[in-house]
């Protein structure tokens, strides 16, 4: 049970129910749009921006990790490529990070397809391991390269972006609000793309190939090709987040934008929220990011490391009781409530 049957736009649902099914997402969007009007503190906006950033990363990841039924654990590589491409281009050549963002996106797509070609033949853990190996390999290389041809990477010391020119064109702001709305727009875009993919032929082919590759192949689906297409889209979108990260923190080094921690956190969020659904990554980020940030803020100083224990505990609990993520039981509840309000009785 994967992808298409669990998504908002499942073809099995009766017509006319599209609006109520999308209502929570639209409401969430309305709330998200209004948040900066209420949350004036830069601290909490910062935390919310990171929340949206991770929701975006996981949504992008979900195209491969959820719909294509494999577990890629090397998406940090694309974050890194995006961050480094736009930063190097803007620091050395004065190219606007917005342009660098797109260049980085295409570079990541290329790399993503190149990784996908040999690795999509692997199954299960082997695929996950191969992607980890690739991302770590790339990080180690960047850590040991000060200069790649004409491009200054500065090895393990990373690159600092001096906050000299502020403004939209330079993708740099003194306030948090612009960052908030940019990442929110990116998230809406990624969710939209996921939604479009999930109801397209590509989405069905992906779901079929993820569940039963042999059966799908016997029906004439080129499983490897559809997975590659998903990987291309996913790596492109992930890479954009890298540029956002660089412009938001104004400092990147291999251990921050290319670390395995990012890949793992994305996978955790997806697992908690529910892989292969549109709402899963959003739910996962909404639950896990605040747990991680607030436990760090409140316990990080008194009992060092306790926040990591809490984080791990939540993860274990959800995996024990809701191994398919929170998205499924919540969907069931919502449907039941809808049915009840419509005066009908429905059994879960």
């Amino acid at each position, binding site marked *: 049970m994967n992808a298409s049957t669990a998504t*908002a736009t499942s073809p099995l649902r009766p017509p006319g129910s599209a609006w109520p*099914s*999308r209502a*929570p*997402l639209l*409401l*969430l969007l309305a*709330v998200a749009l209004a*948040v900066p009007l*209420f*949350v*004036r*503190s*830069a*601290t*909490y906006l*910062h*935390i*919310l921006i*990171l929340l949206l950033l991770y929701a975006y990363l996981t949504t992008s990841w979900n195209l491969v990790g959820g719909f294509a039924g494999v577990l890629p654990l090397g998406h940090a590589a694309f974050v890194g490529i995006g961050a480094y491409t736009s930063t190097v281009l803007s620091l050395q050549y004065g190219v606007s990070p917005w342009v660098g963002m797109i260049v980085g996106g295409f570079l990541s797509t290329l790399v993503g397809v190149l990784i996908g070609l040999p690795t999509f033949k692997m199954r299960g853990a082997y695929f996950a391991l191969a992607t980890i190996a690739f991302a770590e390999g790339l990080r*180690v290389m960047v*850590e*040991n390269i000060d200069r790649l041809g004409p491009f200054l990477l500065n090895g*393990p*010391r*990373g690159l*600092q972006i*001096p*906050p000299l020119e502020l403004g939209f064109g330079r993708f740099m702001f*003194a306030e948090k609000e612009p960052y908030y709305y940019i990442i929110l727009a990116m998230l809406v875009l990624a969710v939209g793309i996921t939604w479009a993919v999930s109801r397209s032929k590509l989405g069905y082919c992906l779901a079929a190939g993820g569940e039963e590759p042999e059966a799908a192949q016997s029906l004439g689906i080129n499983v490897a090709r559809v997975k590659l297409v998903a990987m291309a889209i996913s790596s492109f979108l992930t890479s954009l987040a890298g540029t956002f*990260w660089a412009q938001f*923190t*104004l*400092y990147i*080094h291999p*251990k*921050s934008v290319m670390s395995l*921690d990012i890949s793992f956190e994305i996978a955790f969020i997806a697992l908690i929220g529910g892989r292969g659904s549109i*709402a899963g990554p*959003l*739910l996962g980020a*909404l*639950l896990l990011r*605040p747990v991680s940030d*607030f436990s*760090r*803020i409140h316990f*990080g*100083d008194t009992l*060092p*490391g306790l*926040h*990591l224990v809490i984080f791990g505990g939540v993860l274990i609990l959800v995996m024990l009781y809701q191994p398919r993520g*929170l998205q499924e039981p*919540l*969907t069931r*509840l*919502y*449907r039941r*409530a809808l049915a009840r309000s419509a005066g009908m009785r429905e059994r879960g």
Partner: protein
Amino acid sequence: MKSYRILAVSALCCGLLLWAAAEAPAQAVVKVGNILPLSGPSASVGLQNKQAQDMAVQEINDAGGIKSLGGAKIQMLYADSESKPEKGVAEAERFINTEKVHILTGAWNSAVSYPVSAVAERYQIPFLVPVSVADKITEQGFKYVFRIAAKDSWWTRDQFAFLKDLQAEFNTKISTLAFVYENGDWGKGFAEGWKKHAQAGGYKVVLDEPYPSTATDLSPVVQKIKRANPDVLLLTSNAADAILLTNTMAEYKVKPKAIIASGGGHADPSYLKAAGKNARYLFDIVEWETDVNKPGAKETNEKFKKLYGYNLTGESVDAYAAMYVLADALERAASTDPKAIRDALAKTRLTKGPAMIVGYDAIEFDESGQNKHAALVMVQVNDLGKGLERITVWPKASRRAGYKPVFPIP
């Protein structure tokens, strides 16, 4: 689909945010936000920093707090950076915006202090850095960053000054050098300095070998050192790899005339325990040693050891001294306004008091915010009949009375 719960969860999150945002700051104290790696790979050094600062703040508060502010107490707030820049930045923002701290300190990791210094500058909150040594931290033209420790380039400069003095003292010529260093931020920074100084000093570099500090086998590196056969080996290592290198070198019987380490792993108390006699005759550059000839140093170290169970290190001493530098600035500022504190810090000239257990005679910041008097000492590991110990040998004025360094390694 999706559900009410999405709303419930988001509402809960928003609620949490508002609740946390509504917490009001307390009064009549000087709030210091301290960002340190309290979990993750650097947790143990982060903790040592915290303990040294806690001890200093306790002493300052017990002695009546800041008198010019009516006896205001210093309140330390701690945040965990997990050694990650983005978390350090988030915590700096939280300290400034939510906790309304008057001053920031930390963050041990240069990679965290660097972006945090930009946050501090933007909000105009002074950022007092005890030990992040990367040169660039005070070289950004910022007005609100102040650093106690000697910076990267001074460490390598002093290692080569020592090398020169050593040759003069023993009348032995050193012509070839080997550089072996961990391939991170810190090691690479050192190697750059070494290359520059080697060129200027006319030494021949026979080996330039970075290695990953997580390596579990360093025998290929040691074989390279053996083949290169340098007069002097310069090292920059973290704790586990320092031990591994020293023991592997003993196994392969690699014996250059001298080995000069760069603190860090070699200064970690676990190093001497695990490397044992293999570490004998090693030279190590540090900011401070327990045998430093300064009044009060011994007592302060005893007190620290009693409280926490181990000796002060150079880094903890910087962290300890930083709190007295802050107290001194607050006394002179007679205000908790961050701008006034900043101006007072810039005019610091501290020559007495508990902070002077440091190995030099004054703390004073230059234009860039760097403590211009920060100095380093070279120690040699030797056994004088009471087990292995670290003995200060350089500069000559600080050398432990009656000790003559052993060179070349017998």
